[in-house]
């Protein structure tokens, strides 16, 4: 079984996001980059599938030079090799073009399963896995919460639906699944894995994006304005705590 996991580098959730003066890019200084949350679960699911049923796990990312870090992490956790599509001119690229770029560079691999995160924490499109499914003419399922192999070329997945509903769906290979967080418990890279990762192959592709015509244009990034008047409570921790008690007792009246 040949499994591809699409992973993306995003800022750590606790990073402070600052917008550059061009109003179109994010200031990358002081940002810690990590693998996108749901992609981490997707990677774990791929490793579990491989451990149970055999096969190969290939991780693929399209991003700037610094994305090398997440490929290394994924290899250290147990992925077998990497495909690193390097974006030499990082700027906003609409997700339809991202899908074309990735598809163009992985289609010859003929993967049985392509796993991706449900949504990237930075651009939040919730799209890539399905765009690629269409481009490669595979089956697909989104919001996957559980997987179960039925036979060599069929998989059953549990999907999360609206208002607390779930559904099992059977899919023929090749297939593209978008993974929801919480599906498993992602492992950490062990020292042995980190050592072994050094010898694992990473195919680096320097991409010239000029062949891809943009569909959308990013006009402006800005910090959203507040919709509610918030009363901020300041001071040392003791003062804050005593003001809160006061509010709970006298304003909200729950004490």
């Amino acid at each position, binding site marked *: 079984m040949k499994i591809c996991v699409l992973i993306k580098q995003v800022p750590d959730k606790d990073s402070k996001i600052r917008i550059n003066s061009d109003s179109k890019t994010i200031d990358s200084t002081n940002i810690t980059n990590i693998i996108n949350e749901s992609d981490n679960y997707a990677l774990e699911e791929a490793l579990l599938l491989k451990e149970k049923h055999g096969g190969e796990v290939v991780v693929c990312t399209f991003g700037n030079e610094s994305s090398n870090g997440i490929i290394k992490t994924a290899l250290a956790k147990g992925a077998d090799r990497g495909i690193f599509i390097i974006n030499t001119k990082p700027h906003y690229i609409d997700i339809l073009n991202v899908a074309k770029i990735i598809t163009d560079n992985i289609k010859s691999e003929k993967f049985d399963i392509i796993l991706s995160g449900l949504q990237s924490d930075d651009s939040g499109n919730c799209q890539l896995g399905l765009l690629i499914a*269409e481009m490669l003419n595979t089956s697909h399922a989104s919001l996957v919460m559980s997987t179960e192999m039925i036979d060599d070329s069929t998989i059953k997945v549990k999907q999360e639906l609206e208002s607390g509903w779930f559904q099992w769906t059977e899919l023929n290979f090749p297939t593209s699944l978008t993974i929801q967080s919480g599906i498993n*418990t992602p492992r950490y890279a062990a020292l042995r894995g980190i050592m072994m990762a050094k010898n694992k192959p990473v195919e680096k592709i320097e991409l010239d994006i000029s062949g891809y015509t943009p569909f*959308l244009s*990013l006009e402006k990034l800005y*910090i959203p304005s507040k919709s*509610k008047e918030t009363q901020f409570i300041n001071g040392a921790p003791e003062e804050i705590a005593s003001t*809160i008690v006061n509010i709970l007792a006298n304003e909200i009246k729950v004490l």
Partner: protein
Amino acid sequence: MKALIFIQTEDNKILRSCTESISGIQAVLNTADDSIDTLFLDSSVQGELETYEVNINHLITDIRKFNPLEYICIMESMISELSPDIIIFSHTYQTRDWAPRLSARLNIPFVSDCINIVKEEDGVLLTKQMYQGKVNADILAKSPVIVSFQSGAFRADEIKEGTSDTHEKSLNLNINTESIRPLDKFKESKGEVDLSSAEIIVSVGRGISKEEHMHLVKELSESLSAELGSSRPVVDYGWLPHERQVGSSGQVVSPKLYLAIGISGAIQHQVGMKGSDNIMAINKDPNAPIFEIADYGIVGDLFEIVPKLTELIKNHQS
């Protein structure tokens, strides 16, 4: 400009987020050259749709249960017939399961989870959240474009009423959907905890950082006789059972006091708690989106504030 809105239904009712979309689009497409059509598959909402000020409602009559591949073909066929400039969805779970594929099939971009739309010369300017609500992005799209709106982006009660006609149509689609076989829908057995009736909820997020720290919020919650709630990651990590999760894939709550501790306030969390009477948030990041909806805000370290607060509450009560 011509819009086509896909109407999603549940239990024979139009999803609220779809009525919101109609309302939002009515406000933007309001000249004589504009028109709004809807597309729906469940005849039981025909009566309601006909009370709104839109052009034509298209009812597709020969549809079996949901299959993403079939829905894509329906939309593809109606789009080629009607040539809309914008194709509109609500950003629901079902939309996520087929609209992106439609985008790839038609080679039309899809801007998902938008919160605003403005008409421009030859397209639309769309606003969407990025970085989990910490940043807004304005994106210019030439028509045709596919757009989905976040729930709550527009007000359903501002919808313009009027009359509209319904055209019935059967498409006789003969497509092979065998590669995707949805089985029956089901609900998981309900947990013991019903957060929706709680008066006070102390809710904890990833900011608590380690399972060993969970006792801090548990003690605070006990001191207030509150129910303990949480954001999704805390449940994903296994630190609390799913029945304590608040949000779009958890419970929807509206207590007198919602105390959010170390929760950033992503939209999927907000939809579960923004109806609370009073929202108080403790977060070290002054730009955390939770402060956009909080009545009371404390910018600070939860590890310094929570233990003190628990102590003072206990003192207050004795």
